[in-house]
């Protein structure tokens, strides 16, 4: 207790208050945290003196479950990591397995994947940015961009059949080609979205009330961010232009022109603006991919891993054997250890996979960016107001599903 008292008197931020701390449980289920995680805050009046994070409330042991699942049944698990942008997780997983097996992917599949992943990124950033606004009390923009997110989900639905837990793509490509309707919806989205997004920008970006509210809230220096292992928009907001898509291009990202937005000092406004710009960059990537779309098949020619056509299953012995082997998870995968990462909507989403040649991974680890951001949360909100902590959390886009795999 003495120590605590000393700490308090030493802490500048709380000097002016009388030295009584109260404990506040923010979470596990708090409407403002957008997910299930607990923060035990030591409050000095309205200021946060110190905080402690608890996690594990929706731990589902995915890494352990994955050790018992054949490779193509792990994709549904990845849906539930960052559920705001499931397709990125799905495709990232497929590409990890492809890296392990070492298969060549047709250009067209790469481009289709880029389109899907960028759409997912837009959807994720839209949610994050509009929720920052909601947490500061501006609900209108949120309702506008949610209509656009709906359009994105409808495109996913056309391709894979689900909106949120997409389970999109297969090892080697896509389960089905983009159909007429999907293409039509995609074109409509590309046409309509910039207008709607402009509205959102007009409402918030250069609005002094909003700016005053979030500038210098929850800052983190580039050095601290790097030490924590930040990636993605949150690191870029601190001024470091690290982006997996540019540093280590996968899925033909090297073919596209795009800029990497960076911020100044990693505060909430920087994070907001970085995401805002990234949405525009993603849109331009999708446009480029649509324009340059090569001809070709929508899946690689890997009969051992990609399900054969049903007509072949009925008539050809070989196809039937492959069909059974793929479903039972009995196709041979090489032994080995791979790390593959994609630029998830939240940062570097990595898959560390060890295979012993069996039907399921020997060990699988998901490098979840949210887990890393959340470690820094305590430092970022120290001495801040409670309401600032809420905004900081939503601007870091901590998604509960990704926090606890």
């Amino acid at each position, binding site marked *: 207790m003495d120590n605590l008292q000393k700490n308090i008197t030493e802490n500048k931020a709380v000097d002016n208050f009388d030295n009584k701390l109260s404990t506040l449980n923010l979470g596990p289920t708090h409407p403002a945290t957008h997910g299930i995680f607990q923060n035990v805050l030591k409050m000095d009046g309205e200021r946060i003196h110190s905080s402690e994070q608890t996690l594990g409330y929706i731990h589902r042991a995915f890494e352990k479950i994955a050790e018992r699942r054949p490779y193509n049944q792990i994709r*549904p698990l990845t849906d539930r990591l960052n559920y705001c942008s499931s397709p990125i997780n799905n495709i990232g997983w497929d590409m990890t397995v492809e890296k392990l097996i070492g298969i060549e992917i047709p250009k067209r599949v790469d481009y289709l994947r880029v389109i899907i992943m960028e759409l997912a990124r837009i959807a994720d950033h839209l949610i994050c940015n509009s929720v920052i606004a909601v947490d500061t009390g501006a609900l209108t923009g949120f309702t506008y961009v949610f209509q656009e997110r709906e359009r994105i989900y409808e495109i996913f*639905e056309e391709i894979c059949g689900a909106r949120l837990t997409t389970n999109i793509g297969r090892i080697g490509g896509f389960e089905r080609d983009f159909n007429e309707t999907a293409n039509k919806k995609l074109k409509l989205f590309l046409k309509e979205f910039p207008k709607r997004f402009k509205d959102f920008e007009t409402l918030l970006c250069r609005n002094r009330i909003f700016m005053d509210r979030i500038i210098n809230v929850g800052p983190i220096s580039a050095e601290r961010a790097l030490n924590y292992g930040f990636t993605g928009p949150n690191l870029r907001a601190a001024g470091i232009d690290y982006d997996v898509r540019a540093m280590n291009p996968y899925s033909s990202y090297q073919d596209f022109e795009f800029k990497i937005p960076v911020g100044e000092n990693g505060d909430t406004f920087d994070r907001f603006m970085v995401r805002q710009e990234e949405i525009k960059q993603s849109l331009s990537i999708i446009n480029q991919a649509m324009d340059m779309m090569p001809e070709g098949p929508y899946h690689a020619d890997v009969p051992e891993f990609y399900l054969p056509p*049903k007509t072949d299953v009925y008539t050809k012995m070989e196809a039937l054997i492959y069909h059974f082997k793929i479903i039972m998870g009995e196709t041979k995968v090489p032994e080995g250890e791979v790390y593959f990462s994609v630029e998830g909507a939240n940062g570097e989403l990595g898959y560390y996979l060890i295979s012993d040649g069996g039907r399921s991974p020997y060990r699988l680890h998901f490098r979840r960016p949210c887990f890393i951001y959340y470690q820094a949360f305590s430092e970022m909100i120290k001495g801040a107001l409670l309401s600032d902590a809420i905004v900081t959390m939503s601007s870091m886009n901590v998604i509960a599903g990704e926090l606890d795999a």
Partner: protein
Amino acid sequence: MLSNRSIKVSNKKMTFWERIYLPAIIGGMFVTFKHIFKKKATIKYPEQKRPVSDVYRGKHILKRDENGAERCTACGLCAVACPAEAISMIASERKMGEENLYREEKYASVYEINMLRCIFCGLCEEACPKEAIFLTTELVPPFLERQDFIYGKDRLVEQVDKRVDVSKRKLKHTV
């Protein structure tokens, strides 16, 4: 700078125009006002339903063939493919005179899907070598009892007089 394609996006300096903040507010008001005259984005849900795509992954159906015989042969591939372990079945042998009921010599006398476990991933329809199980665009309705979510053959098998068209959702390469 790691890459040479970074751009600075956050400008925290406000111009005089922005500092007096009234123009921004009027601009915002204008945007919201404009939206009053736009088409409504919401629908009145239970009465009015959103058109879902042909490939939407909803409630399952066990198909019958052209003659009305059940296609499923209780091979168990769907149960193996199911990541949620939602499917269970008991296989039986077809007897004489049941050829019009079951397409193959072996059939599933009990076939259950636990809709509470199911994650509607669609892997079962992909796995089925007999094109017997498909997901449909219908949703599983809510029930009060957990037991009610375990769908047996009575609710899964396609009714003879109410055929469901699944041709659109068959994967393209399956023709």
